[in-house]
Each structure stands twice: as C-alpha cells, then as structure tokens.
C-alpha cells in the first residue's frame, strides 16, 4: 500500500491530486464520473464578492494541444456560494478550497471573511493571476509589491491555510513566490493560464469576444514545469503544480520538479474522470518504482 498523503503546509491531504479552479465547477457536475472524496482537495470555481456573468460568447477556442479561454470568472458571488452551494457540496470533500478573486484588495478580504465559518473550507486559493477580468486579477500577480499587498491583507483575516495562485506571465516567477511567502502564504499554486490570442484568418477577427484569453493544456506543460522547478528552489513553503497535466506521468513530472501536490485542469474537459485516473496512475507508478510514500518523490529530480 502506497502512502499518497502529503502535507501542503499544515494541511494534510490524502492524495496529492486536486481539481484546478474553474475546471470542475463545484464538484457536483462530476459526481457521476468519480468519487470526489478520494481527491486530495476540491478546488472550486473562482469566486468573487459580487456575482459575475463573465465575458460574452465565444469565450473558448482550441489551439494546438491547448485551450484558450476568457470565461471571465462567471460565478454567482460569495454569498450564493456560502448560502446555497456550500451546503450542497460540503459532503464532497474534507477540503473544499475556494479560489478567491477580485479587482480590489478589499474584495479579496471580504470574500475570505465570509468564507471563514465554513468548516470544510479549510483553505482559500488567492487568485492573483486571472488574465480574464479587466481590473485586478493578473495585475496583482505580475508585481511583487502588489502580490505581497494582497497576501498581507488576506492573511490578516484568513486564519486557515492560504494558498496563493501565481501568474506565469512574469519575468521572474520565483520572486513573486518569495514575496507572497514572506507575507505569510502557506503554499503557492502555479501556474494560471498564459495570456494568449487566437485569430480567424478568414474573417480577420479575433476568435474570442475578449480578443485575448488564457492558454491552458499540454501546450504549456513544459513552461509550467520549469516554473514549478524554479519556484521550488526559491521558497520553503509547498508548491502546488499545474499546467497541462493530462495523466499520472505528467503529474509525477511536476512532483519530481518540486510540487508537493498537483491540480488537474483542462484534462477534466477531455475526460471528466481525469483526477481519479491520475491518482490511480500515481499509485501504480509508486508500486512499480518501489516508492512507499509519494513524499519521497517531491523535488526528486535526479541531476
């Protein structure tokens, strides 16, 4: 029996596999496909203070080995989550991690305050990297001082695990990671999507209603993997890795590069049972390689 549990910074989760925010709804949509309690954590859709309709259709398109989206954080707001959604999903996992977004620091703080009393909400993932909202989001994630500021303010009100989600659209992601570590982040998760664009040559128009969007999927995996490795070497807090993880092999690569846990995003769109298949695949790999404890693999890249 392989021990798959990991400690992501004061929070022990039973497997190193989580959903990625915005790619699994609220978990309910996937109950037909897998046993959600088996996941390390359920990271739900980006949640803002006020409800948001998101951007106009079309807001997603395929690219070579990737997806480009500009959903724009469609959600019914934190109050709806607190009152309606949470009671419906609290049985789905012991760790329901809410991805918190906003365009002003006060919004992040308010959202976290409202979430504080939800028992299963053992962590928030502070999203300072959404490329698809006009103000805020990514702006916080592309400057050390802004990233530090958000982290600091949220830290004041949020006493449970605070994960900060980093943007890959930066020169030195490790410096941003250090900045949020210094302000008390318990872990960092990376990467969010890459700013990108698609054009229809025939009509000469952008494909997305928003012109640009965020790129995810296997296309970005090699870049994300390097960023995880860079951040792993720079900070002491656990790193949650993601970006194009489609199967257990990909997940192992991120763990070897330094991720304590990983998130599965776009893969869920291709196979709604991806998360559970990744968990089973990691278990198999450990068995084959004689690894008793998945923690042995973290940062285990042989160089």
């Amino acid at each position, binding site marked *: 029996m392989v021990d798959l549990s990991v400690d992501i910074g004061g929070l022990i989760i039973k497997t190193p596999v989580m959903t990625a925010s915005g790619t699994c709804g609220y978990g309910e949509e996937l109950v037909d496909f897998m046993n959600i309690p088996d996941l390390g954590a359920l990271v739900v859709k980006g949640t803002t203070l006020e409800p948001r309709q998101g951007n106009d259709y079309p807001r997603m398109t395929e690219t070579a080995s990737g997806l480009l989206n500009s959903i724009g954080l469609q959600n019914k707001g934190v109050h709806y989550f607190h009152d309606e959604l949470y009671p419906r999903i609290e049985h789905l996992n012991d760790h329901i991690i809410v991805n918190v977004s906003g365009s002003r620091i006060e919004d992040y703080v308010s959202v976290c305050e409202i979430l504080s009393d939800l028992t299963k909400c053992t962590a928030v993932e502070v999203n300072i990297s959404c490329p698809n909202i006009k103000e805020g989001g990514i702006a916080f994630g592309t400057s050390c001082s802004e990233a530090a500021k958000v982290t600091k303010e949220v830290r004041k009100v949020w006493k449970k695990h605070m994960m900060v989600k980093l943007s890959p659209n930066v020169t030195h992601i490790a410096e941003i990671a250090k900045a949020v570590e210094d302000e008390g982040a318990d872990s960092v998760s990376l990467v969010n999507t890459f700013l990108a664009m698609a054009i229809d040559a025939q009509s000469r128009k952008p494909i997305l209603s928003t012109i640009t969007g965020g790129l995810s999927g296997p296309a970005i995996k090699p870049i994300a993997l390097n960023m995880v490795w860079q951040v792993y070497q720079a900070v002491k807090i656990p790193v949650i890795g993601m970006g194009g993880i489609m199967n257990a092999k990909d997940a192992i690569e991120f763990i070897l590069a330094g991720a304590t846990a990983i998130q599965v995003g776009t893969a*869920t769109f291709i196979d*709604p049972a991806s998360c559970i298949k990744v968990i089973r695949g990691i278990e198999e790999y450990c068995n084959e390689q004689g690894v008793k404890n998945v923690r042995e693999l973290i940062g285990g890249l042989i160089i």
Partner: protein
Amino acid sequence: MQKRVEELTIIDKQVIRNDYICWEIQSDKVFDKIVPGQFINIHVKDSPGTFARRPFSIHTIDYHHNSIQFMMKVVGDGTKALSKLEIGDKMDVVYPLGNGFSISDEEESLLVGGGYGVAPLYHVAQELIAKGKKPCFLFGARTQNNFILLDRFKNIAELFITTEDGSAGHKGLVTDHPIWKERIASIKKIYSCGPESMMEAVAHIAEKNNILCEASLDQVMCCGVGVCLSCIKNTIRGNEATCLHGPVFNTNDIVW
C-alpha cells in the same frame, strides 16, 4: 441515466451522400432511460488538430442492444478523423449529456429541423408516437440535395419540407411554409433543432401564437458536462451552460 465515460464499439456505419455518416455504437453495459435531445461527446484520437471532444445529438436508441445511433456531418478535422473509424473500432464517449426535450402531453406537435438538427427530432417523434401523440416534421434546407434520410422520417410521421431555392417542397424558409397558417390553431408544442437563425424565427412565431416551444441550442462545446462554462447562452436567468442546463431550452427563456 447517469453520465459515464466509456469506450463504445462501432456496430454500424452508413455513409450517406459522402458527407454524412450514420453511426451505431454499442455499450457493454445496460442503458437506463435516455431522453430525446440528449447528446454524446466524443474524444477524437489520431487527429493532432482536435483537442476538445466533439458533441453529437442522439438520433435514436436501441434499448435491446444498448446501442446509440447518431448522424454526423463531416465538416472539419475532428469529424474527418472520426470518419476513418470502421465497424469494430471503439469510440471514447461521454454520455448521455444535457437535459433533452420535455416530451409533453400535447396532442399535436410540430418538429422543426434544419441541417444535422433533424437528427434528434427522430428520437423525439418516436417517443411522441409511443405516447400515442401526432408529431409532424417540418424540415428546411437550402436545396433539395441538402436533406438526408427523409424517407426514414417520412416512415414514422407526416413530413413537410421547404427549400430556399424551391428545388423541393415549398420554396422559402421553414417559417414560410403554409402549414403555419393552416395548422397554427391545433399545434400545441414545437420542438426545434437546427441553425440558430431558424430556431429564433420559429421561436418568434411560437411566442406570437402562444405555443410552447423548445429549441436545442448549438453552441460550440468543450467539456459537455457543465464545468468549463464555454458553451453559455444568455437566458432570463443569466448565462447558462447549454451542455448542462440545455441544450434544450424553453425559447421564452432564451435571450437571443
């Protein structure tokens, strides 16, 4: 029926008119009730240009053999790659998805279709007939050659057609067909599936005449299970995922 991801086996493949394929795919497992208007979402292997799954309406179900028929128009890389599969090969399918039409108790109903949108209306008609109702098809196309498998539809219910060029049936759009004037009083429900402009025009007629109308929307989809929020349509309740809350909507709820 619960949704599932499964490798289904191709047990029949009929190429129609070069650009349509009528597939039958079979499961090892027993089917529960599948609602007309529900769809399947296929993972296309062996096509480097196709990353997301591709959705297709269920054309009809064979509950004895646990098989699904669907009609596929070959339009781009994904459907081209699928078209190379043969009987005996597998398809990786997520199904059954979406809400489907609400098969209601109105005596007379009109099933309005265009393009590959006619496919699910066959299943709708089958259910209506099983309930002892009288469905009637009204299909439109640009020209005669664009229709497929009309005989199959004719065999189970009355069928009217329109063509834009007048090459068959009434000349004009489906909304120009005389049936609207002749039968408007007796039609109590409209089921529509086809190009959005057609469904919108039909919805307006329905609204004006106070007829219950459902339309199956054709947004580009990805996950098919309501988690990517790419396939949204604006409704009176806000943006809704058409793969989860649809593809079938009461047309009064849609903000066109």
